């Protein structure tokens, strides 16, 4: 999707002077210029800082969980503390890291760039979204600082409404408020993708990253309000004694689960769909080949978004819902796997006859495909009723969704950050160190979560502070893996920050990738493009003559 406009434009200087040109980073200075910015790229940086802090916090809780589970008896902390720790791990990771991570950081930065727009359609709303996120985060942090919450991130009633003695209301409000930031982002993306595309950029010329963000935004807009009202009802039940789910009044705790999972299952797709978009970009860029079956991959995103709303009941197979309802949810859940399988096969087929280089982002992308395949297949296993009864609420489930969330979403997020970091900062990071960290993440991840599949089938229930001694060996393995994983995550933090000051200049397009975002300087100017690009063909066209000719030498990354 190169544009002749930029390639031929005489205004654009060569890469060697790129950094001196005015760009979004050096256009204005000062804290005020950041806190009041309406530039989607700066807002993406603000989000990057916020979600990184929450990722660190969530990881800290994860580390405490893994340390506690080193021994069968709860030695490190009491059960009440442990219950709060795993709850805060879930709440922080799900609502304050996984859901916003890719859309609010990479999406915010790239959606306008990829469609040739000057900004998102509603820049003020975009900034508001970041503030709203932080207000929600403040509520949650306040709850954490006061001792946290112990309901599990699922807030199941009646435990959350009538029995827990912790800070449920402020956490619930935090999640409620943060939900609005998602809605603002999703709404903004939909409007932007509909109304702000560059001339000639038809729907089927859009990069798959845009398709997946469009599908994600649909889920956000349709699903988030439902969790908002559900969580509000929980808060109202605690605060005002409005007993909508209270079994003592004849209320139905299962109704809460239906409402909760109606959002929270699609929320999984809010986390994974943008990741899939990132992987499509990475695979195309590092195989230098058009994504195989572009239309199938694009429609698979929309298919996942739609089907994702019909499968929530698979979280409730043993809750006492009708066995016929369970049957329907089971078959629908399997249907969701079809578009996911289509994506995996198409990415693999993209590699065929490609020109594959093993830069760091590609290592993450290939790791993603493998881990997502395992996560997806185990997902279909637990959608199978006969198996789910046994492994429901055990470590099998924990392993499965970590393969999707950590092996999927976080791998893609890291891959995406490494791929677009030169675009964001204009700098290169150390190649060897970054490849090492990708390897550590992959190895550490598998060592952490593969044993949990076995633990789960052995029957170890999740959210256990102490456990029967025969489960210890696998738990120790898992903790060992987590420590490797931790090192893998800490390294990038250091070399990204290092690269901002000491990194080599990347040039405009260090990967020799195509796409509108690579047709503008790195870092881009405030208005993104010097001239509005005119698009004449589809994405990922590496074989077109003119692309071939101007393909720059790949930057050396170690």
């Amino acid at each position, binding site marked *: 999707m190169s544009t002749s406009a930029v390639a031929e434009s005489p205004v654009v200087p060569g890469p060697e002077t790129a950094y001196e040109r005015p760009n979004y980073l050096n256009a204005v200075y000062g804290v005020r210029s950041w806190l009041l910015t309406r530039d989607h790229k700066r807002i993406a940086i603000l989000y990057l800082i916020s979600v990184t802090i929450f990722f660190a916090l969530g990881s800290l809780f994860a580390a405490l969980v893994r340390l506690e589970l080193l021994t069968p008896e709860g030695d490190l902390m009491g059960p009440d503390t442990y219950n709060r720790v795993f709850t805060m791990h879930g709440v922080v990771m799900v609502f304050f890291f996984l859901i916003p991570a890719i859309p609010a950081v990479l999406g915010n930065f790239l959606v306008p760039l990829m469609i040739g727009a000057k900004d998102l359609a509603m820049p003020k709303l975009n900034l508001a979204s970041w503030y709203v996120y932080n207000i929600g985060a403040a509520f949650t942090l306040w709850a954490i600082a006061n001792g946290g919450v112990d309901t599990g991130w699922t807030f199941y009633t009646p435990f959350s409404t009538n029995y827990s003695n912790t800070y449920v209301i402020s956490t619930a409000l935090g999640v409620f408020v943060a939900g609005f930031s998602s809605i603002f982002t999703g709404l903004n993306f939909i409007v932007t993708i509909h109304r702000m595309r560059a001339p000639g950029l038809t729907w089927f010329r859009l990069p798959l990253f845009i398709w997946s963000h469009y599908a994600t935004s649909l889920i956000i807009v349709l699903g988030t309000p439902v969790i908002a009202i559900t969580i509000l009802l929980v808060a109202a039940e605690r605060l005002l004694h409005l007993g909508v789910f209270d079994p003592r009044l004849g209320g139905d705790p299962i109704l809460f689960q239906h409402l909760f999972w109606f959002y929270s299952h699609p929320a999984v797709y809010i986390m994974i769909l943008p990741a899939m978009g990132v992987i499509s970009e990475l695979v195309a860029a590092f195989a230098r080949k058009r994504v195989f079956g572009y239309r199938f991959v694009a429609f698979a995103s929309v298919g996942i978004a739609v089907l994702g709303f019909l499968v929530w009941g698979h979280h409730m197979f043993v809750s006492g819902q009708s066995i016929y309802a369970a049957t329907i949810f089971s078959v629908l859940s399997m249907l969701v796997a079809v578009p996911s399988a289509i994506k995996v096969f198409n990415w693999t087929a993209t590699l065929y006859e490609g020109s594959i280089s093993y830069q760091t982002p590609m290592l993450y992308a290939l790791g993603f495909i493998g881990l997502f395949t395992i996560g997806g*297949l185990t997902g279909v296993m637990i959608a199978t009723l006969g198996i789910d009864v046994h492994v429901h609420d055990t470590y099998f489930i924990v392993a499965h969704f970590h393969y999707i969330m950590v092996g999927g979403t976080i791998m893609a997020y890291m891959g995406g950050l490494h791929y677009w970091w030169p675009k964001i900062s204009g700098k290169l990071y150390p190649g060897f160190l970054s490849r090492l960290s990708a390897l550590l993440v992959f190895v550490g991840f598998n060592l952490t979560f593969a044993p949990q599949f076995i633990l789960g089938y052995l029957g170890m229930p999740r959210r256990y502070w102490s456990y029967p001694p025969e489960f210890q060996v696998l738990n120790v393995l898992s903790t060992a893996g987590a420590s490797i994983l931790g090192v893998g995550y800490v390294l990038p933090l250091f070399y990204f920050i290092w690269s901002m000051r000491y990194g080599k200049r990347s040039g405009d397009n260090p990967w020799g990738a195509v796409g509108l975002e690579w047709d503008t300087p790195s870092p881009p100017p405030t208005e993104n493009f010097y001239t509005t690009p005119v698009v004449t063909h589809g994405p990922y066209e590496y074989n077109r003559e003119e692309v071939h000719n101007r393909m720059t030498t790949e930057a050396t990354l170690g």
Partner: protein
Amino acid sequence: MESQFPLFPDSASALSGDVDLLFIAWSAVSVFFTLLIAGLILYFMVRYRRRHPEEVGASERAAMWLEIGWSVVPLAIMLAMFAWGTRVFFQLYRPPKDAVEFTAIGRQWMWKVQHPGGQREINTMHVPVGQPIRVTLASEDVIHSFYIPAFRIKQDAVPGRFTSVWFQATKPGTYHLFCAEYCGTEHSRMIGSVVVMEPQDYETWLAGGATGKSMVASGAELFQSLACVTCHRAGATGRIARGPALEGLYERQVKLADGRTVIADDTYIRESILTPTAKIVAGWEPVMPTFQGQVSEEQLTELIAYIRSLGPVGSAPAGGTGGPAEPGAAPAPETAPQQNREQP
């Protein structure tokens, strides 16, 4: 349980083997596809590695047959697995007719188990080998989940309603009983054991323990002491009867005042005791007071055991007509004594 480092769980119920087979089959499919994808990726990585910096990939050769193939094949495999898995699931949730009734009531943080003979245990459950056992579950506070990994069964105990699960132990031994739904501070301590014994050992154990009254007997006593009997009186006719007699009621169809028909199962009887106004039997006045707060979950299960003993499904006339609980225009009790006589 002997092994310090097991990799596969004990398998000790009539259906655990079926679940394992399903799981192993699925695992094989998963491993196959994972290796397929990983193998292809590794092969392509080597075969199509970038040889000089300006090289680009070949242009795409779109192949519709491939797209359709890798949509349809996984779909077919999944539908087959779905059918298989659902079959196992239905078996897991449909107890045989001859199952013996136990109850297990969850509360923070223990399982209170009651045997049909009235024996009570906490966090331990002695059961005979080879006997199908249906466990009625209830909760006194939050949601718990009754989980016996060696039997591959699990069912949530939800406050405000009954759920049930069944199993048939096949191997004597001691197995874990877990609470699988997070329920607060001592969730991980809400664990116990299921002791599977040879039938004669079980009898000895039953005899040795403090024998309480059987559940039916306790229920009958409650039926008197709560004065249920003053209204729900067998053989009462006309104006004397203020409520329908309950003989032969269990698992029969009941016609309601609003025209609906419901099956008189555990859940219905429970609701009728706690919320008498929710479903009014056709032909009767809504005069029954609620017993909410007056009967515990345990007593509820005893009352239901008693009502069940008044008329098992087998003894009721087929088709659900003419039963005492379905009086139509005329009050039913006339037919009740007949029902009673059929009881052994």
